[in-house]
């Protein structure tokens, strides 16, 4: 299943706009939520192919969102891939726990939109 619809949950306006811009330019269908609550609601209400999830979010942290969506007995978003995108230096336990429920974990400062597109393309082909 090729990736088409993408949800970005990111509270930093500059970073959010940057990803939205490059993803839209590459032809993806993009929704952007700036807080954790809206992000969680959007992820449950619309069938996205991919969610780009920040960690340090207002209302609900990324870890909490991932726990709700994927931590229970049932995967609430079986059709959605999740890439955690953060600049926060989490404790190893927190990071490990998020990695277990996510399909990718990237440090924002270490990738550019171009590299992110390459990762999404690779993920799209693999699935």
């Amino acid at each position, binding site marked *: 299943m090729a990736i088409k619809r993408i949800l970005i949950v990111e509270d930093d306006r500059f970073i959010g706009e*940057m990803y939205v811009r490059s993803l839209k330019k590459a032809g993806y269908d993009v929704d952007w939520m700036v807080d954790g609550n809206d992000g969680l609601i959007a992820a449950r209400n619309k069938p996205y192919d991919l969610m780009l999830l920040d960690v*340090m979010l207002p209302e609900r942290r990324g870890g909490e969102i991932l726990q709700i969506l994927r931590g229970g007995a049932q995967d609430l978003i079986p059709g959605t891939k999740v890439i955690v995108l953060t*600049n926060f*230096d989490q404790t*190893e336990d927190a990071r490990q726990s998020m990695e277990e429920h996510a399909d990718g974990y990237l*440090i*924002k400062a270490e990738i*550019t*939109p*171009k590299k992110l597109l390459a990762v999404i393309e690779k993920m799209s082909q693999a699935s």
Partner: protein
Amino acid sequence: MEVNDTKKAESEQVNRFWPNHKRRIIAQAIASQIFIGVIAIGAMVFLYPSLPPNAWMLLIGLSAVALIISFLLILSAMRPLKDLSAALVHVAGEQSALTPPNLNDDRYQKNHLRPLLKLIYDIATSQTDSTHKIKGQDSSLDIPAQLNHTSTGVIMLDSNKQIIFANKSAPISIDAKAYKSLDLIFDVDPSINDWIAERGQHDIHAEKVWRRVANKLTGEPDRRLFDVYASYEKGSEAETIVTLFDRTSEYQPEDDDLDFIAFAAHELRGPITVIRGYLDTLNDELAAITDPDQKELFQRLMVSANRLSGYVSNILNASRFDRRHLKIHIGEQTVADIYSTISDDMQMRAAAQQRLLSVSFPDSLPTVAADLNSISEVFANLIDNAIKYSNDGGSIEVSAATNGDFVEVSVTDHGIGMPANVIANLFHKFYRSHRSRETVAGTGIGLYISKAIVESNGGKISVKSVEGHGSTFTLSLPIYATVADKLAKTGANNDVFLERSSSGWIKNHGAFRG
């Protein structure tokens, strides 16, 4: 002071007892005799007014004899009291006119006072002895109980390395089988258990100190930091004695500083993300309309932003390492794959500074056990240094070869090189040589953290340099096949997306070292 004054007053009262008591008894005796005499004479005058003078003389004489006899009786009755008082005054340590009774005197044998005096002297002697014993050593003193009152941890191990004693402050854990073990996280070699295990083979007596040893990981509740002193004495009942000084209050503020660094690094990464992201985007989008000059400016901006990102990673890693919290994610990697994650960045950095970067790894190179992210940062640090410390137009070679159980990766430049005294300090934190401070930008943290990362990966880092001719930095990484068994035991093999490697979280990186 108050206690001493009270004791002195009590001793003086003991001393004053005898003279006071003697005066009182004699006064009472005289008063009672006079009283009886007066009554007797009065009664005789009243009953027998015409008594002949001889009878009066007899009566007065008898009264005088009775007075003398009663006096002698009183003195005899009071003598033991005097001796007991003298003995008590003597043992109370007071100066006195009374001579202390001599137990060997026959008198005391005859009047049966000897056992009483002996008892007084014995009690006094035993009290003096026990005072000395408390000051020194006393088998009746409950030392283990007393040790629970100190904040210093004390642990004793027997010759079988079993904990035979631990006081309340000692950080030990007891498992379901009542097996006691030291609850400390040793990040350095040897750990205390390794050290103890090695004693006895060569040593009769040995001592070792570990500083800043935590009982829990950063962020866990009740985390304490200790300085640990171990002493070993072969053949002793408690062969190893470990003392632990709680230095949490001293070391904790330093940890808080490091938390601040981690937080500041997070804040720095936000703008770096945007700068790098848009530079990359603009570089692509404006490619058609920028001239070569402008393209070079773009490249310099991108190189600078990438370096900034690298510095932040180095600072974060150093902060984690200093908190003994640098964890790595060891998996099977090829050297070429590790390099490929930084290849574009490095080529761009070399090109931006007119250096020729040539990289070649033989196809036959075995896979290595390494943490992809942190080792690629080490590669970047070494190559970036080679770029910085070489001359315009200079070449930099990156190569790899097998050496024993290790793969060695070398980064060679033909730049300014270093004298021997600089090499000695090169891997120290914040060290920058006098010349590099003047000519090249940097934080002095790159080689420090590179060494820490390589060693955490079970490898080594070294340098050869000739001043004026360039330097070669070499890092070694264990060949995967040589450590695969040990790695498999240390953690689960979870495949992580975007990495073809398996992963295992390893606390003690020395565990799989060859």
